[in-house]
């Protein structure tokens, strides 16, 4: 029977290209969410530090919710909630929104820790040298605090990169979703999952090693 249609075909070299493209999408959605989330998180962290009890009563519990509910539930909830209020977001946009807020909730604590890591005498010294509040923030708190929490921030960023795999539940074809598509066609789960895992590992491992090295060097 030569006219039967073959649904399954083996793994071909061009599938590697497909996986590579999907890896780029993973990097793109992660980079976007981590950048926006970190900026937002830094602002939240500053608010938590300066806001005293007002922030403790309002902002902190809200951020806490995003850390206490599984990301996958947040994604499904938001994706189904947006149309209710008249927003029509595609999976990518929904994913970016939730990943950004999720990142911000995690970075907020890191950022507050960074500000707290700068000893008050240092800041008083800066102020008594005539620096304004923002000059003190920019030239004293930022360099010292950043150094203290940079490894923790890298940990958060890498975590978000790995968690971006969950956006696949909304239908966004990133690395893991692409591997599932290929598995369905080729029926070679072991090979394809190994390749996908290798991509993630190659993205994450060098950065985590670099952060660990920096932490060691700065600790001395």
């Amino acid at each position: 029977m030569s006219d039967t249609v073959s649904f399954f075909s083996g793994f071909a070299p061009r599938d590697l290209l497909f996986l590579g493209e999907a890896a780029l999408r993973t990097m793109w959605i992660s980079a976007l969410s981590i950048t926006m989330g970190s900026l937002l998180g830094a602002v939240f962290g500053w608010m938590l530090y300066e806001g005293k009890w007002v922030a403790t009563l309002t902002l902190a519990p809200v951020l806490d919710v995003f850390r206490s509910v599984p990301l996958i539930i947040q994604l499904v909830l938001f994706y189904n909630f947006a149309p209710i209020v008249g927003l029509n977001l595609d999976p990518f946009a929904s994913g970016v929104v939730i990943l950004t807020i999720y990142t911000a909730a995690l970075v907020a604590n890191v950022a507050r820790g960074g500000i707290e890591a700068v000893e008050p005498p240092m800041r008083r010294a800066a102020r008594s040298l005539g620096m304004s509040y923002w000059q003190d923030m920019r030239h004293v708190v930022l360099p010292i605090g950043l150094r203290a929490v940079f490894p923790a921030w890298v940990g958060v960023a890498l975590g978000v990169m790995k968690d971006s795999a969950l956006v696949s539940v909304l239908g966004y074809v990133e690395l893991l979703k692409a591997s599932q598509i290929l598995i369905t066609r080729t029926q070679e789960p072991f090979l394809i999952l190994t390749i996908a895992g290798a991509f993630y590992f190659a993205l994450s491992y060098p950065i985590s090693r670099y952060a660990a090295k920096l932490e060691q060097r700065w600790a001395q």
Partner: protein
Amino acid sequence: MFDYNFHWRPVMKSLPDLIEAGFLTLQVAALAMLFGIVIGLGLALIRLHLRGPLYWFATAWVELARNTPALFQLFFFGFGLGAFGLHLMPYSIVLAGLSFNCAGYLAENFRGGFQAIPDTQIRAARSLGMSAVQAYVRIVIPQVLRVVYHPMTNQMVWAVLMSSLGMLVGFRELSGETQFFASRTFRIFEYFAVTAVIYYVIVKVILGASRLLATRLFRY
């Protein structure tokens, strides 16, 4: 703009089922945590004291667990092992995946904990006539526990949140059960909103219990 009618009645009807599924979530997370602690302790001790093939095995485990997405690890236990004719039940997939992940993260925590205890402590214990095992059980472990207690609590929370990925491999824990009901009634938002609340409560209960336990454990 806001012409969506919320229907909470079906959700309330299946609330007992959801809460029961919540206990299943808690169960699988606690079991994964237990395996994770035992294996993680082994991996940490291997990485601290041994060289050679065992060291590389432990290092590979830790780095793979920490540098690939948890969802990828679940898929690997779910579909990847199928290539070797090993087909696990959804419950076993989630348990194996979570245990693998927890063991990797906890191993690094434990390693840090052991490194925080100075060598002189063991030497002092030995010179007081304790055996190596006694020195470990009576002197080192209690001090390590203090260092790793907080990270372990966090890991337990992560285990609960990660178990929600079971939904994607057909395991009917809290998220899987929610998806099951949601796809039957199409009340997706309502179901997942209630589930989010249940997760939040579970996480808060764990954190509260951990704090209570800490005040009893670390009285001195």
